[in-house]
């Protein structure tokens, strides 16, 4: 105020400018998340859902009554529930819970509000080692990390939806530990995996400073992962460093410090389609889809009213030994966007995939993959939880996921234990030298 009094001639002008700035800022802070990321159901549609829920919420859905909900489930899941013995269970069942809006974090709302109006694609295409990025496929500003948030909160094409999926950064920095149990459902044999993981997103950051990107990033890294293998026992102490780059022209880098051989091995990107250990997923299947968006073409098929896990309580997931698929999922009504995904790499392990994307969290509750003979092969059922970061931001995150091989009758129920979001991480944690030093 002293400033205004001393410079009397400018006081009115300053006041007007401040008022103008405030008026611009008010909509950002006051705008409800629902206005930025639209909910699945509103108005009369929501009323109908609530009416339906009066019948179904709290009910255990299993072999006896799953027929009534066939239209709300992917065909593969429905078939599995009809034949639970094949999956090592007397019954496969889930519980229906009420629909709840998944409000994104404040950072995600702000970033979406700020960057999505400017979202556009690069007009020029280019060639890559695995194929071509066509004009209007690469999100403008993505390579330099100048964008964040959901670029297309009201998408119209499959490609726009896929970019929304890619925008999820799960608290920007997060840690979790996979407890997996690959199960041979024919024999009941299980092997266990325990693999703590730490992720750092270098671009697209929305919740933890610096946002939207880490400045010192000359290699244009999109995401890094540091993973330690504790189980199976013979892999104890093995560490994996993975670097995914924003630039589609650059293949990912993977370094493995193998405890048994005490040396760092570089892995080639050509094995991205290889199966991970004894699981029923390829390397590119991690966190729903762990690769660059431009590697595929996308065709939006339809929006379907379905049941999916979005507020899963991890403690409710159960299974007997030898059972390759969880029981106790908490599924709620929501709208899923079905997208047909075809890899541009003709030799890729999946010639076709079907992604089910949730229109609020832009995550993937279900995925179906076909083999080269055109048969349904792998299926993902992801149990999304609604958690909180250290800063108190909501984080929609798959607290468990279940890949199955419907041909081999093999399942891999995985829990993410002790997930933490938004912790401080140093970038030098994700270096080859750190990998070398942390080995023995």
């Amino acid at each position, binding site marked *: 105020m002293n400033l205004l009094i001393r410079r009397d001639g400018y006081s009115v002008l300053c006041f007007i400018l401040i008022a103008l700035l405030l008026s611009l800022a008010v909509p950002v802070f006051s705008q409800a998340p629902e206005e930025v990321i639209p909910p699945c159901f509103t108005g009369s549609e929501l009323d109908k859902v609530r009416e339906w829920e009066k019948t179904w919420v709290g009910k255990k859905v299993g072999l006896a009554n799953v027929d009534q909900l066939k239209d709300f489930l992917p065909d593969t899941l429905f078939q599995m529930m009809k034949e639970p013995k094949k999956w090592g269970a007397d019954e496969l069942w889930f519980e229906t819970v009420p629909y709840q809006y998944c409000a994104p974090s404040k950072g995600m709302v702000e970033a979406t509000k700020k960057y999505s109006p400017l979202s556009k694609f690069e007009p020029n295409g280019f060639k890559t080692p695995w194929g071509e990025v066509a004009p209007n496929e690469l999100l403008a500003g993505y390579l330099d990390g100048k964008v964040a948030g959901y670029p297309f909160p009201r998408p119209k094409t499959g490609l726009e939806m896929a970019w929304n999926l890619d925008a999820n950064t799960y608290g920007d920095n997060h840690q979790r530990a996979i407890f997996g149990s*690959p199960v041979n459902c024919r024999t009941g044999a299980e*092997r266990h995996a325990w693999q703590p993981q730490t992720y750092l997103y270098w671009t697209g950051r929305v919740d933890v400073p610096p946002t939207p990107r880490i400045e010192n990033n000359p290699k244009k890294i999109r995401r890094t992962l540091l993973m330690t293998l504790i189980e199976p026992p013979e892999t104890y102490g093995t560490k994996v460093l993975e670097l995914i780059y924003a630039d589609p022209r650059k*293949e990912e880098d993977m370094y493995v410090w193998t405890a*048994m051989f005490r040396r760092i091995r570089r892995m080639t990107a050509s094995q991205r389609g290889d199966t991970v*250990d004894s699981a029923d997923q390829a390397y590119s299947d991690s966190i729903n889809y762990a690769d660059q968006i431009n590697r595929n073409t996308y065709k939006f098929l339809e929006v379907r009213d379905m049941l999916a896990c979005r507020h899963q309580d991890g403690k409710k997931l159960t299974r007997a030994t030898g059972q390759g698929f969880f029981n106790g999922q908490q599924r709620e009504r929501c709208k899923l966007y079905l997208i047909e995904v075809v890899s541009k790499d003709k030799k890729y392990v999946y010639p076709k995939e079907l992604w089910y994307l949730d229109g609020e969290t832009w995550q993937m509750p279900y995925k179906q993959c076909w083999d080269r003979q055109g048969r349904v092969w792998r299926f993902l059922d992801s149990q999304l939880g609604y958690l909180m970061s250290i800063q108190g931001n909501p984080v929609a995150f798959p607290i468990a996921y279940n890949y199955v091989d419907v041909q081999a009758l093999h399942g891999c129920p995985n829990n993410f234990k002790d997930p933490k979001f938004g912790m401080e991480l140093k970038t030098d944690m994700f270096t*080859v030298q750190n990998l070398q*030093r942390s080995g023995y």
Partner: protein
Amino acid sequence: MLLTLFIFSLSGEKKSNAAIGYLDGRLLLKGNFETFWIVRTYIPGKEREWHNSNVGLLQNTARFETFYTMLQKEDFSINLQSIIRYYYEAITDLDREMHNALPAGNRRQFQTPCFRYDDPVNEFFLEIVKGPWNIRVGKQIVTWGETELKRTTDVVNPMDLRYAMPGIVPFEDIKIGLWMLRTFYQSNLPGSLLFETIFIPTDHQMTRLPPSGTNWGSGLLNKDAPSSVATWLFPMMQDQWKDDAPSRRSINNYQWGFKLRGLTKDVDWTIQYFDAVDSSPVGKPTAANQQVFAYFLHGPSPHIPKVADRVWEYKRTKYVGATLQWPENIYLKGVIRGELCYQIGKHYNTLNIKGKPVYVPAFTADGLTWAGDFATQTSLITGIVESDAFGYGLAIDRPVLWPWLMQYNDHRKLDITFQVFQDWILDHSRDLKVSNRGIGDRCSTAVSLSVSTMWFNQAVNTNWKSLYYDSGTGYNVFDVLYMPGDHWRFTVGAFFAYSFTSWTQEPASYDKDMFYFRIKYEW
């Protein structure tokens, strides 16, 4: 160990399938129990007298690994790590002929970790991590190379070849730990340079070679076989190699080296230097020749007195090397790994290849007397030469996603690794006789191929490894590993050696076709 486990049991354990944790996870114990059998498919008739069965090796091993975090603060930690490995080789007791074939001392040294300086402690070191510094003090195994089956730059730890060959077990399981000080410093220089130094003040270990009469050693001939008179010559020499090995407490054995690691334009590289005392000796020409004569004067026996204080010498060699790793994703779609090494001042024995008269001076030892005379045996040592040598190893890893195979192996890759190794002895003498190369050969070449894949959701793993030397010898290893759950591991394998030219037959390979079985319990 039992007392230790009891004490820790009072503090409450946290058990997983992989390790047992104590003290809130600051102390982790893990390990395995293993029995490893080798059954030979062929034992030559001339060696049958020393075998009651075809079982060549029956080794039972217990391995305990400890990871103890003594102190953990923000950027400062102190850890203690150890690997204790105790084994008992049983067939040299159960097979009475093999038992009788080995002198009692040699047998005991072979059966358990008591071979002179052998001890059950494979590794035991304290690690201090502070900021960019990492200091490790204690007994350690160091891996500096990039290739498998053969070593070019990985020269810090000597090997124990008494129980298995590279290919059947990884190098790291047959390396002998050394007491050393090892430091790392992570710089902020371009390329994220990592500086590593090694100083080994006194520790020296010789390469452990299999005793004659054991599975991997040269076969002992029947007593009435024509050449049986020489059957104890090699055991005698082995005893003397041990006897002449440098003391482990002498500062004269100091060894040191450094390594620089960096990343430039997507290539991981290292430059390294190591000043080492050789782990294999060369013979002092006069004394070694006298020793051989003493053997024949005495008559066949492994216990021949030494003719001199020192018959064998362990020389010093300097190694200058480099390695690289480079993923090539456009054409090869694989990873190229390479290593090269220049050996400065490597010592070799020259032999009396042409059968010229060599004077063997007079000696007297333990009642044996030789008056001195000329001899013409081609095995006589004529001198020691010092030559530089250069070698390289190049490996190409190419995982293949082969659609036909993927129909049957859960869509898994086929890992293919091709390697080539070459080395040259510079200023080469035609009188040199070096293992795996012909007489007078300046250069030796070896190629290897490894193929592996998994089946039934990683429950079954199949591997094939093949190594061939241009001298005409080589071997194939094929094994199947079955992993039904978290703990049990079953391996069935076959090892087949071959030789295309009789003059290059290595004594340790011509009769070494075998099957092997391993049962392991991991915890």
